[in-house]
């Protein structure tokens, strides 16, 4: 019983979720100041009937949202309940449960057409990895030019893609090219998967994608941890790396029989660090 500060903590209400590949973000409504909320303890389980306990605690936050990440490329279904803990240590009953699903990656649901590297949360198989970015300008100049079936990830696709904010890479825009062949123009859209093991923490910048000269998308990259320039394995326990995923459609109309050229351009912000890049039929 909360003896001195008035009301007991109330459970969070009106839980909602948004999701992406490998993550689900849960938001809720709660009163934070009376009593003062120490934190919201976010519990989750694949089991819809779970009761919150130490083994189901995903994390604690003082904010009104919590991002559950690291869920992997396969779509997952989770159930969430939130316990409010106040300044005295008193706990509310758990909130009502919320069911949410993460989005499945095309690397799982699709069929590979052309791929650079392995989608494994590591940059280690790519050129210059895990920390050789100082050699980038000498080896790659204005960017990579990778030909599927000819080039090799370990020599022809650098792990780090710089942007104009990177003095070590000439403070200029850098465009990488990815060439692959199709036997015929596809009837349906293909999908492009760009997995990153990390990005710059404050200025990750935007990734501009074209397909055979046709603009496809400009994607604002998620903020990372600025560690992927020096470390290459996001599967290690306690890794500071903050992976993120970009997956988008390549319109069938922009593709053609024979050689196709994708460009990944970075004309804004600082670097991002690749895990793998691939084109998939979905």
């Amino acid at each position, binding site marked *: 019983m*909360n*003896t*001195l*500060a*008035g009301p007991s903590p109330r459970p969070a209400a009106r839980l909602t979720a948004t999701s992406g590949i490998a993550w689900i973000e849960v*938001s*809720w*409504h*709660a*009163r*934070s*100041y*009376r*009593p*003062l*909320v*120490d*934190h919201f303890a976010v519990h989750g389980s694949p089991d819809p009937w779970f009761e919150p306990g130490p083994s189901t605690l995903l994390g*604690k*936050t*003082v*904010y*009104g*949202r919590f991002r559950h990440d690291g869920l992997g490329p396969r779509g997952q279904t989770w159930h969430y309940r939130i316990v409010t*803990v*106040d*300044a*005295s*240590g*008193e706990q509310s009953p758990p909130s009502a449960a919320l069911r949410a699903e993460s989005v499945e990656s095309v690397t799982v649901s699709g069929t590979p057409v052309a791929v650079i590297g392995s989608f494994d949360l590591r940059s280690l198989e790519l050129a210059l990895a895990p920390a050789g970015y100082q050699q980038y300008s000498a080896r790659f100049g204005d960017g990579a030019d990778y030909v599927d079936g000819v080039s090799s990830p370990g020599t022809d696709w650098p792990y780090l893609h710089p942007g104009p904010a990177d003095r070590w890479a000439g403070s200029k825009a850098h465009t990488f090219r990815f060439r692959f062949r199709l036997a015929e123009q596809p009837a349906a859209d293909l999908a492009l998967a760009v997995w990153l093991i990390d990005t710059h923490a404050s200025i990750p910048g935007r990734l501009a994608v074209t397909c055979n000269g046709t603009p496809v998308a400009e994607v604002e990259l998620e*903020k990372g941890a600025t560690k992927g320039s020096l470390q290459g394995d996001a599967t290690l326990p306690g890794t500071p790396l903050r992976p993120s995923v970009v997956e988008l459609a390549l319109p069938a109309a922009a593709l053609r029989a024979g050689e196709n050229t994708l460009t990944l351009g970075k004309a804004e912000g600082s670097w991002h660090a690749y895990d793998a890049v691939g084109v998939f039929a979905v």
Partner: protein
Amino acid sequence: MSGDDDRSGIGRRSFLGLAGVSAAALALGTGEATAAPRPGGRLPSDPFGLGIASGDPESHSIVLWTRLAPEPLAADGHGGMPRRPVTVEYEVAEDERFSRVVRRGHAVATAELAHSVHPEVAGLRPGREYFYRFRAGGHLSPPGRTRTAPAREARPGELSLALASCQAWYHGHFTAYRHLVADEPELVFFLGDYIYEYAINAANLWREGVTVGPAHDADVQTLEQYRLRYALFKTDPHLQRAHALAPWIVTWDDHEVQNNYAAEHSRYGISPEDFERRRAVAYRAYYENMPLRRAALPRGPDMRLYRRTPWGRLAEFNVLDTRQYRDDVPSDTTAGGEHTDPRRSILGAEQERWLVDGLRRSGALWNVLVQQVVLARIDRDTGPGTTFSMDQWDGFTANRDRLLGAVQRHGVDNLLVFTGDIHRHVAAELKADFTDPASATIGTELVTGSVGSDGDGAPTDGYTGLWLANPHVKFYDGRRGYVLCRMGPEALVSEFKVVDYIQRDDAAPVSTVARFVTEAGRPGLEREV
């Protein structure tokens, strides 16, 4: 999360509605009780592991502080205390042996405030030394020494005071406090960054001879984490001794919440609504761990920290808060651009009015601003260009102009500014026109280096040229330390103290690397050493 939060905080309004203030004071651990002590039961081990403190001296009263924590580093932030309230008795005596006790009382330590108490002891005599101690759960605290301010119209002879700031515990030992204690100042000013919110791990744990558990390897965000962070820093024995030595007058900077925050704006992509939730727990933890009066008790995400402490006719200390009310960082940081917008404020309109009004009315000889970030104009481009920090007063030039204009307009005597933040010792003269070295000097700014932040340091570093290129900057040193001052009717003597290293152990000797005299009636810095 949508917001219909009640921002009134701990429920102070309802307490003030109770019959008599003692119930509120008792419940909040802030005041003397009129009733008999409630049995609190025994505590299994010494609960005074975080030390004791006093602060905010007035002519007839002082605030005492302790926070019960038999296991200071318990991961839930509650210090190993049971959830139940515990009575904390205190006594104040005129002598170190407690043979002449002049005040006794008790406060109730509750889990809502992490079992901290802030009893305000009134009825004391002005301008004299007292000793105090606590008893709780069958345990007696070590004694502390404190002091009341002189009477309002008194003309005290001399006051010795010390300035400290920026104590990143993980960067090294608090050797500076060991020497500060030996200097026995009568008053200590802490100028911000009492804790840091960063995760502590192998990358930044430069203090040798210690280990920390995984609970500390996380960015501090929840109340239990802030409480734990204060506990970790307060385990330093020299910090505890410095608190027990003399009353402290404290203010904060950014790291008590988050690096470089501005009001409700985070630099790290957190929405204002969520950031206020974080600010609320950070401010609560700050109150719980500082010797502050009940007027500072936070209300939700708000906390009134700016206040004024007169020291007879000798000085008036205006303690400022340049974090909670400041405008956000301008989107255009070009020198001469948005940061010069006359609408921009680092103090907020209400605090600015309060400050200027106080300065205008002051009859004190020395008028002191006790604050966080550098007030003097510092051009950070050593070449022909000009570049300014948007985090310091340079990011709010109109506010500085208004303040210094008021100082000149109202004939404010002997403006002194005590500053922290930059981890370096700096002494500067405040100019009527910073771009004209020949213009009048209208005040003096003493910037104390860090106690711990940035590790060992060196006399000169990569910033030395930058600072000394500004002609009104008279001194720079990049080592850890503190500033010791003797303030009298004729002059202020400021000594910049440094230790050569802090990472290896706490054994480094101290040296006085510079001594300045600022004569009353003649602002500026005359270097003696």
